[in-house]
């Protein structure tokens, strides 16, 4: 071989020098970035107790008539470090036994076709396989058919979430309201043949309540009233509470809270992220999958609900938007979720005979967050001023220009059948929720001036790129009304959340997730000092007290009153500005696929509807 020429040697030397320089730069930058962008620490321990007032808790069945002594509600103020309240139910109150219905009651139906394969396209681009660690519906699509929960929601009525029986036949609420005993179904087996019993429930709940190091637990906040879950006997488990919890059965019924076997959990060290085929008890068993392409599931012939599921197989393809519409209309799938705005409307309009479409509340909310750690938004006068001046209908219209959405407020009008939400007519008269009047705008300006920002200011407005129309609209309103100039910073999701957690922003538009639209569930996730989705680090004892009270009370007039007072409080101090409630759009081939639209509208997040779906 000829020797390298001087020219070539020089080139190699230069390359080597360049590489060395790069490594040096990297080494320097790695020492600066070694402290990864850190999430703000929870500033205070979780609010330990609700206020000590209220009556018996009976989420579904009416409580037996019993005299209840009502302790005086504490004055609004700090309740941190408040001792756990004493039981508030009347001495000697009887336990309440609840045996809820199940959506599978009445199935199997003789008229329903048995067998066949349904193909569906849903978001299925899951990054891992642990439902307890997931907060995205990408896990729901392919995985929920393989599992059951203790309870799931019955699709009785749109937006009304009634916990129904699944792996638990029902529950008994203790006389003091501090424990729930769940009676488990008999003869249930996991897909690997092992028997399901109380040990599996205890292990699963332990994973949720006390996640191991390095394991997330996204629904832990939903069980902040639960001290422990213990085994009473092989078919009975007890949830031991530190306070009354009016919505515990609903929290249990959240679709992500699937039951997994203790053996599987121990084998995988309580981290199911890599386990795409962790055995469940569900109506379908795992066959195979190609990540972010397709999941193939087959019927569980030993399913504990006799005669179900109807289908032999499920094929779950990954896709949304235009791909979902195209796949459906070309006949490649029977059902598609998350169609783009307009595609579903065309199906509804009859442009595609034989196909049907429906809309459903996504149970997320979008909102403007204020950075409560920085001026000027640490001042509630500033927040309320903006709240009064921004027209929420304009914000909704901007959202609806590209997506589907509905009017949202502290308790979304669509949630729970509108039980606790203010009517649209009432909101149309309420400052902050109505189109601003001249008086509203003047009051807003007065508040801003009183806070010291009457002459305008500059703020950093953080936004995710896909939702910039609302951001730009908001920025324009701020400038025109208050002279506030916004420096817009738009980025994709990964960079966006990096910036959010860093706290280097003043105002942002963000989405928060909730499962069934209950005010406790929403506010606990978002508004408390320890809330995992409290992007603005908002902290106010009054709100913590209010949220805890709403969470403690069972459905009924007392709860309604508590919610009403809380809503008024939130209107005053404005921790965040709710903008809208996104709406999803699904569609299906009505000639091939038998679908219960009601079930799907309520329960995409939460429901194992595939077990009663069938081909026509």
């Amino acid at each position, binding site marked *: 071989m000829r020797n390298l020429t001087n020219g070539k040697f020089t080139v*190699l030397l230069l390359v080597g020098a360049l590489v060395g320089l790069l490594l040096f*730069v990297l080494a320097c930058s790695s020492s600066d970035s070694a402290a990864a962008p850190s999430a703000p620490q929870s500033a205070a321990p979780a609010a330990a107790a609700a206020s000590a007032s209220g009556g018996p808790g009976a989420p579904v069945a009416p409580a037996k008539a019993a005299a209840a002594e009502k302790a005086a509600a504490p004055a609004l103020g700090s309740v941190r470090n408040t001792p756990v309240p004493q039981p508030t139910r009347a001495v000697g109150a009887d336990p309440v036994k609840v045996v809820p219905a199940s959506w599978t009651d009445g199935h199997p139906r003789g008229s329903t076709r048995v067998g066949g394969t349904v193909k569906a396209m849903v978001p299925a681009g899951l*990054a891992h396989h642990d439902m307890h660690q997931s907060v995205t519906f990408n896990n729901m699509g392919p995985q929920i058919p393989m599992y059951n929960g203790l309870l799931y929601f019955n699709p009785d009525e749109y937006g009304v979430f009634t916990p129904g029986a699944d792996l638990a036949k029902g529950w008994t609420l203790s006389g003091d309201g501090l424990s729930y005993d769940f009676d488990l179904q008999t003869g249930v087996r996991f897909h690997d043949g092992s028997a399901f019993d109380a040990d599996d429930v205890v292990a699963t709940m332990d994973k949720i309540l006390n996640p191991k190091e390095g394991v997330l637990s996204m629904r832990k906040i939903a069980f902040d009233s639960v001290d422990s879950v213990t085994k009473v006997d092989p078919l009975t488990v007890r949830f031991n509470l530190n306070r009354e919890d009016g919505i515990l059965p609903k929290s249990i019924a959240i679709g992500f809270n699937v039951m997994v076997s203790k053996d599987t959990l121990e084998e995988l060290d309580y981290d199911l992220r890599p386990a795409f085929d962790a055995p469940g008890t569900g109506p379908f068993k795992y066959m195979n999958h190609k990540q972010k392409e397709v999941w193939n599931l087959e019927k569980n012939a030993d399913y504990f609900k006799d005669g179900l599921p109807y289908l032999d197989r499920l094929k779950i393809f990954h896709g949304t938007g235009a*791909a979902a519409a*195209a796949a459906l*209309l070309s006949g490649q799938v029977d059902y598609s979720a998350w169609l783009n705005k307009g595609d579903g409307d065309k199906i509804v309009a009859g442009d595609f005979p034989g196909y049907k479409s429906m809309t459903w509340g996504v149970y*997320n909310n979008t909102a403007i967050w204020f950075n409560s750690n920085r001026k000027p938004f640490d001042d509630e006068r500033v927040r309320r001023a903006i709240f009064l001046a921004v027209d929420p209908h304009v914000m909704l219209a901007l959202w609806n220009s590209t997506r589907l959405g509905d009017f949202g407020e502290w308790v979304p009008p669509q949630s729970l059948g509108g039980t606790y939400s203010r009517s649209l007519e009432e909101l149309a008269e309420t400052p902050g929720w109505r189109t601003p009047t001249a008086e509203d705008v003047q009051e807003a300006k007065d508040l801003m001036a009183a806070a010291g920002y009457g002459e305008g200011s500059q703020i950093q407005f953080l936004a995710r790129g896909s939702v910039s129309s609302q951001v730009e609209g908001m920025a324009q309103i701020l400038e025109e009304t208050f002279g506030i100039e916004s420096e817009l910073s738009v*980025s994709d999701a*990964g960079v966006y959340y990096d910036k959010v957690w860093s706290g280097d922003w003043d105002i942002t538009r963000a989405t928060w997730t909730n499962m069934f639209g209950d005010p406790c569930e929403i506010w606990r996730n978002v508004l408390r000092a320890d809330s995992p989705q*409290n992007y603005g680090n908002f902290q106010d004892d009054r709100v913590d007290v209010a949220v805890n009270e709403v969470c403690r009370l069972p459905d009924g007039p007392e709860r309604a009153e508590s919610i009403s007072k809380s809503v008024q409080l939130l209107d005053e101090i404005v921790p965040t500005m709710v903008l809208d409630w996104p709406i999803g759009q699904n569609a299906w081939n009505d000639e091939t696929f038998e679908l219960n639209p009601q079930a799907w509208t309520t329960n995409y997040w939460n429901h194992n509807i595939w077990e009663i779906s069938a081909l026509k």
Partner: protein
Amino acid sequence: MTQYLIRRLLIGIPTLFLVSVLIFAAMRVIPGDELSVLFGQDEGAAKISDELREQLLADLGLDKPIWVQYGMWMGEVATGRMGSSFWRDESVGEVIARRGPISAQVAVLAVLFSYIIGLPVGILCAVKQDTWMDYVGRVMTINFLAIPNFWLGTLVLVGMIIYFDWMPPLEWEPFWVTPWTSLKQSLVPALIMGSAQAATVARMSRSSLLEVMREDYIRTSRAKGLSERITIYRHALRNAIIPVITISSVSLGFLLGGSVVIERVFQIPGLGLSMIEAVQDRDFVVVQNLVLLYAFIFVGINFLVDVLYAMIDPRIRYS
């Protein structure tokens, strides 16, 4: 010649090393939260504690010193496993083995189409220079050069859905299982990808052929009484095709990288789609390995082009 080729191979090594360092560095300096895909993106995200964040980063190997991370990656590349994806339940090597042939199939078909379409057009334009056939050919080639293939692909896809109720199959049939079905699946995307390449081939072959046709030996060939067909195809084309081979061979490398867009449009589960998914998920390992793979392919293709040169033209002997 042999020495030249060996030197060419050896120079590929520092090239690949440089690419690996660049992409490794780029992945670590770009902004964004590596863990955002773990706790939700579109639906909102949840705060996690600093301790949990550190633990999760450690699980991903991102807590180790940079040179250790790089060394570990190189070790995985050497063993063929190429590292474990952050968020996939398969190694990068398995992803490449599963999806690579799909991308290769579409890219190779695209190159074939580019020759099947582009070469005859280029020859026709050269032979019929300054006639209406030449003008039409040139206008068409310019059009297909200018039109972005993602736009064309979307247009074709929408048209086929609306007018023929057709859309790309959701499940990809492997070529070795059902060859004909697999080819049918690749046809439309390969045509789209090949259209711009065909335009390039046509223009290059036209200009190259025009140059060769003015050579003395072509005049001699005609003077000897040989038919125009033999003059063009046996004498002129062989010389004219050398630069065309260079261009289209390099294009094969671009097609593999540029397939990202077409794979997204047609939902082809190839390496391009894997790249998009990995970038969105901030899956460093997958991005690094795919970029390195593309670099390797480019180096390899360039090497093969040189070999092909020497085979086609006996005058070319490297020293």
